[in-house]
């Protein structure tokens, strides 16, 4: 089976949130809802020398993620109705009529990709812009990125980075995400306790 997924060149990303804005706009999402989110991570310390000057080893970096369309998705395994399923091209999506909006998928996914939209009464998530794919177009986030950070397609044909192993993302061995990252210099390994999500209020 062909498996579709994302490649993300973190060395080009400037944390502009355009991918997220375009996704929300295209999918007509409410402002509190997002299929793609941009995490900001920071760490390091500041110290003052005896002459009053400042020294710092601090860093900050962004990671843009949506659904990773995992090989071993947590969301499909907990779905009581089978609405959350892995379909053609390996894309994980919601069969809306079968979804009862129980929210197990949202709780189970370590990437917080599926979310329950109470307005429509079911789970919602990135489907790789299925309607655009059907028209031979790329997902809206890919076309939106002014820095050309994001690529989408058959995982065998995408550039090969590291399989999503940077903080604040979880251990990739758990769900085997189809997100490959060209890591930036400031990136910290997944599970690192030396850094923190700096914009938690905006992404959660």
């Amino acid at each position, binding site marked *: 089976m062909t498996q579709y997924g994302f490649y993300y060149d973190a060395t080009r990303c400037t944390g502009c949130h355009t991918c997220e804005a375009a996704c929300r706009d295209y999918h007509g999402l409410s402002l*509190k809802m997002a299929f793609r989110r941009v995490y900001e991570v920071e760490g390091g310390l500041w110290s003052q020398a005896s002459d009053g*000057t400042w020294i710092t080893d601090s860093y900050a970096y962004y990671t843009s993620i949506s659904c990773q369309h995992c090989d071993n998705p947590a969301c499909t395994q907990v779905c009581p109705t089978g609405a959350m399923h892995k379909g053609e091209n390996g894309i994980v999506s919601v069969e809306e009529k079968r979804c009862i909006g129980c929210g197990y998928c949202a709780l189970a996914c370590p990437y917080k990709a599926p979310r329950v939209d109470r307005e429509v009464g079911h789970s919602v998530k990135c489907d790789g812009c299925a309607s655009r794919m059907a028209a031979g177009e790329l997902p809206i986030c890919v076309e939106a990125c*002014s820095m050309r950070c994001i690529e989408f397609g058959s995982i065998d044909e995408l550039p090969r980075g590291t399989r999503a192993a940077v903080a604040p993302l979880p251990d990739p061995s758990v769900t085997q995400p189809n997100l490959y990252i060209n890591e*930036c210099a400031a990136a910290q390994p997944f599970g690192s306790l030396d850094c923190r999500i700096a914009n938690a209020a905006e992404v959660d």
Partner: protein
Amino acid sequence: MSDSVNTLTRRAFVKAAGALGVVGAAASAGMVVDRVPKAHAAAPAEGAERIVWSHCHVNCGGACPLKFHMRGDEIVYVETEGAGASAAAKERAFGATQARACLRGRSIKHFIESDNRLDYPLRRVAGTKRGEGKYERISWDEALDIIASEFTRITKTYGNEAVFIQECSGVEQNIMMNNPFFRLFNLCGGVVTRYGSYSSAAISFGAYPYTYGKSWGNRSLKTIQEGELVVFFGYAPNDMRMSGDGAGYDINVAREQKHARVIVIDPRRSELCTNQDVEWIPIVPCTDAALVAGIAHVLIAEDLVDHDFLDTYCVGFDEKTLPEDAKGQNLSYTDYIMGTGYDKIEKTPAWAAAITRVPEERIVRLAHEIADAKPCYICQGLGPQRHTNGDNTARAIMVLPQLVGQVGRPGTTSGGSVGNSGIGLKSLPTGTNPIKTKFPNYLWPEVIRDGAKLTATNAGIKGADALKVGIKMLVNYGNNMIANQNGDINTTTDIVRDESLCEFILAYDVQMTDSCKYADIILPDLTPQETVSLSAAGEGCDVKGIRFGQPICEPKGERREVYEVCGELARRLGVYDEYSNGGMTREDWCRKLYEEMREKNAGMNLPAYDEGVAQGSFSFDIEPSDKVDDFILDPKANPLPTATGKIQIYSPELAAMAKTWKLGQGDLITPVPVYFPGYDGPDDVTDEYPLMICDYHYKGTVHSTYAVNPAVNEMTPFQVLINPIDAEKYGISDLDKVSLTSAQGEIRTQARVTNRVIPGVLMYPQGGWHSADMDGDRIDHGGCSNTLTSRHCCPVSKGTGQHSVIGRIKKVEA
């Protein structure tokens, strides 16, 4: 995100919609309303989707094409240049030019469809004060009659010099801008005008003229060569020039494809220094000139300067190139740096370290890195020059590349701005203004208040020794200056509220800004996306391109665009035929100006106007010039337009001005660019105001226009950046609600405890919409940075000093 938030949002929406219906009914019955009445409920989305091309432009430096997917009158979503399956892979590739819109353009639906839009002409209710915000709906005819008669009355009583049209940052990039007002009033005797802008007054009027005689030697980031060292002083292109054809993209390409090594000197870790492996050197705001002096000391002491360059092209590096009348007095730059002239202090790296808080070792190493780099690209953003010492700071940074001969050649820029070129699209012609008197843009409130007291030597008046009269009629079109973007809102609005000073204020905008609430008449504008529009590719982008724009829908309410409205005024003032050039429409002008540009670029095979409209936009990359500048090739044959014909490290003009100009507290004019901290600079912090507060252009909004867009505020909320060391000292936790206070006023905002700012400094995004009880406590709950800024400006250019503020932070109860 919790599910309850969504439910709440929906309920809140229904409630708000109901409330608006009530207000609308009240308005139609002629009652007084606090809010703008709404004419229209959202039309149900019906019918097939249609595509309309327009573009986004809010003076960010870009102008990104927007491909609107419309259904009925409703925006379904937007795409941008290069959208769709037809775009070739090579056009999509990293390094190719596509003007892709950023989060601001992609969120424009929420701006255009905002409930805060103006729909009808409004008149301030008789008996209420400016700033109270009480307005009643009137007809267009009534509004236009009042404006025409007030213009006639005021020009008869005080002369045309009493009329002023403010800059229109919000719509500055399309061919119309506020030019219809200039075109109209120039046919009726003219108006007093301004020079300089909030953006670049100090570098444009306090640095370039005295250094290069003009803006000279600026090359874009595309000139960066393989492996080159790039040094940015306060330049943050990835925070505002974020389009796919912009400077932020260019530096990213240069870094990856040319292996450029980039160093950024800034009080804040800008977006360029996040994922990009770009070194950030944190610095105290206002002190860039001290850092330059420390670097210059190393270059001079270790004899690493380019003597041939300095002797041939520059004036005043050392004694031998000083003008004759300046010799023998230790007035050279070397005398300043080595402690033999001016303040007699040696500007050692240790001296610079104590002021800038950059470690001495890093200053020495930076000097060596710059000395070794050939070529070396050194430039500045517009932040360093927006301090009260901005003229000298801008000049000082320009000296740095001059010391090592790195100006006027491929791979360099001037030490000033990043350069760019364009396609040469002209704006609506404004005719001839018979009035030649100009004043510095920042001083318009003082012009209202002090009028004829302002002179050439105390306020930089040009074209006359002094003003004849203050501003009696103010046109506030597309800018939100009165109560938002100008320094010190509390002082400014006190001046504006006094109806004995400025007698008539017209506001004309798309949204009910706080500035509108100081107007006597408010007119509702169409956004550029709701009318015919034509813009060149972004003015901050090094591309040749055009963005066409067709109205995305029929005008809602009674919104009307500026060219037609000024035409209606022209009829009332008896100049319509001349104004409209025999009846030309807005679209006629777009067509004419486009075709004139197309003729001039005959070699480019550009599409005809109608073809362009159909395709929406085009962008062509620009190849960087590999030519050495003419002045460098032959400085005698091609002198610069300075007093000496050369690059002036020592400016004789400034030496003369230093003797005659009247200056304020903390101000200094010097012939060589010395460091001085400036008014409310780093030396002025006190126990009461222990922190420097520095505003900056924020990626979500850039300026104020989009700060009213909830979609960008959700992703990029307005927050004050505070270092963890300061946060602990002042008892602030992440996301606390805080007050920021300066001598000028107080705002409320949210704290972001972050490593991304140097200790001792609070960085706060500019552009938030002012919201305060101006007859009460004046606490600004909208969080506009200009509640904190002062009226103090730069000594030479009289450009804004809005980045020089001292103040305090305090946690407040949420």
